């Protein structure tokens, strides 16, 4: 069985600094990390490796620094990693990325599952999975919380739907988009971390994928950013529920709100 996990390297949302007064967002000081739901996706793939012996291939697109995230995914247990990178690919938006990834996956040959994160925590579009499925003409199941079984050319999964959960059966090959919180992503083992730069990573360019500059032209233009209105800072209290209730009542009374 072969499972492909596309991952995205993003700036750690926790390290992004927002300055409403200067209407500025500083990304550069935030660490580069694997997109959180992609880690959930990788975890599902690694579980299939543990249970069914699946071969897990991680693939990512971007500048040369993306190599670090692929090697980290390898350290977690992936069998191989491929980087799609050149000047064009580094600037691709989600449409171009989906196209490039589809081409790369086709180049890899047969596969059973593509397991992706439902959404990137920086752009929050959630378009990659469906676009990949469309480009490869295979089914896509979104918001997957659990993979119950993979056998006989089919996968049975639990997905979210409004306020319910649905059990879905899908024919393989297929794309599964994993929901945030579906699992607890494993951490890489230390020895594998120390060995993660010992192997040669294949790097494919746009030309290797048969893609032109026109193919990878961004379809969306970012025009600017604005901030939500500033909230007044609150106060943190502590104590037993009785104490807190009293304090809250006093607080509200002081301000003649009750």
């Amino acid at each position, binding site marked *: 069985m072969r499972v492909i996990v596309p991952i995205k390297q993003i700036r750690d949302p926790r390290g992004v600094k927002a300055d409403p007064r200067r209407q500025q967002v500083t990304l550069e000081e935030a660490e580069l990390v694997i997109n959180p739901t992609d880690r959930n996706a990788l975890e599902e793939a690694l579980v299939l490796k543990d249970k069914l012996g699946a071969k897990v291939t991680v693939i990512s697109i971007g500048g040369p620094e993306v190599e*670090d995230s692929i*090697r*980290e995914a390898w350290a977690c247990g992936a069998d191989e990693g491929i980087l799609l990178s050149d000047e064009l690919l580094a600037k691709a938006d989600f449409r171009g990325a989906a196209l490039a990834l589809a081409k790369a996956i086709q180049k890899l040959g047969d596969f059973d599952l593509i397991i992706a994160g439902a959404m990137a925590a920086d752009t929050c579009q959630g378009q990659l999975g469906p676009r990949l499925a469309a480009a490869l003409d295979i089914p896509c199941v979104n918001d997957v919380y659990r993979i119950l079984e993979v056998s006989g050319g089919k996968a049975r999964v639990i997905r979210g739907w409004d306020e319910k959960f649905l059990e879905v059966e899908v024919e393989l090959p297929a794309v599964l988009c994993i929901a945030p919180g579906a699992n*607890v992503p494993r*951490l890489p*083992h*230390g*020895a594998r*971390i*120390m060995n993660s730069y010992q192997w040669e990573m294949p790097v494919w360019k746009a030309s290797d994928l048969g893609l032109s500059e026109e193919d990878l032209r961004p379809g969306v233009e970012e025009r600017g950013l604005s901030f939500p209105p500033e909230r007044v800072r609150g106060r943190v209290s502590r104590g037993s529920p009785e104490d807190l209730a009293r304090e809250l009542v006093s607080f509200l009374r002081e301000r003649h709100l009750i």
Partner: protein
Amino acid sequence: MDFSFSKEHQMLRRMAREFAEREVLPIAKAIDEEHRVPMDVVKKAAELGLLGVPFPQKYGGMGAGEIGYCIVAEELGKVSSSFATIIGAHIGIGAMAIYLGGNEEQKKKYLTPLARGEKIAAFALTEAGAGSDAAAIKTRAVRDGNYFILNGTKQFITNGDIADIITVMAVTDPSLGPRGGITAFIVEREYPGVRIGKLEDKMGIRGSSTAEIILEDVRVPKENILGPFGAGFIVFMQSLDMGRLTLGAACLGGAQTALRMAMEWAAMREQFGEPIAHKQSIQWMIAELATEIEALRSLVYRTAWLVDTRQPFTRYAAMCKMYGSEVASKAVNIALQIYGAMGYSRDFVVELMYRDAKIAEIYEGTNEIQRIVIAENLFRDFGVRIRP
């Protein structure tokens, strides 16, 4: 001069940090209040290779060197001194003694399960009459054919209650003193005659175990002599050297957390119409502390680099321990003062950090001993031999 960490070490730091925040931080307060050792979390750490960080992969370790070990110690130290102590005693002195002094068979038999975290190590040197004066130990090892019979009581042994493999220093020839008269032995907890005595009730690091280990006619095979016969003093001095460095790294972690918490509070807490961060008293404390932490960071990682490049490091390791523990104590003291009355309350974590920090100035060689080690090391270059 390249001050950056390797990619592998950067990845290791991310892993250690996430492990610490995910698994250790949520229980840090509870293990203090409940006075228990979180063996379940130790097991999870073992599964990631965190119980064998510096040891070569062929012995089941991570192969990350002393730099890697300092990184892990720092990240754990940021979150829980108790947890950092458990790991520190296990890797830093317990298993380290076997790594530095053991032969191939001993490393295969003992170091490998320790590095994998399948077993826990402790380092048994201290006795009631032998604290700073380690050479004054009285535990006796008498030859009996292919065995040595060990008798004695070890005190204040970290991990004492949870250890499977204990490195024990015993007197093999009372007439020779420390040079030639002390031998190191690998003792298994299961050997008949090994008993855990008193479990200490400590001010802090209450999530770690500190115990009395009693040896009553314990038969230890001669194959378990660690290092050359009679050279036990050297084995334990070398282990302590290494352990000192990483204790400094753990203190670096703790100091940073204290600094961060102090600043968060100072930025939020308003008195006299503005955040107290606007007060110069606060600013001076923060600026001076931050400077010392930077100095400590450079000292720790440069010393780790000296170890990994096989250069002399004894003096610097002692500096790391002495300076690290004093900076950490200063940091928690400042954090507590900035928090004011809240800092004195057991509802907040600052007082836990305050209680935990103090022990670092005392164990693994008091800071007085560290000063002697440093001075002794320095004065040697001037032809003066210093004794404690």
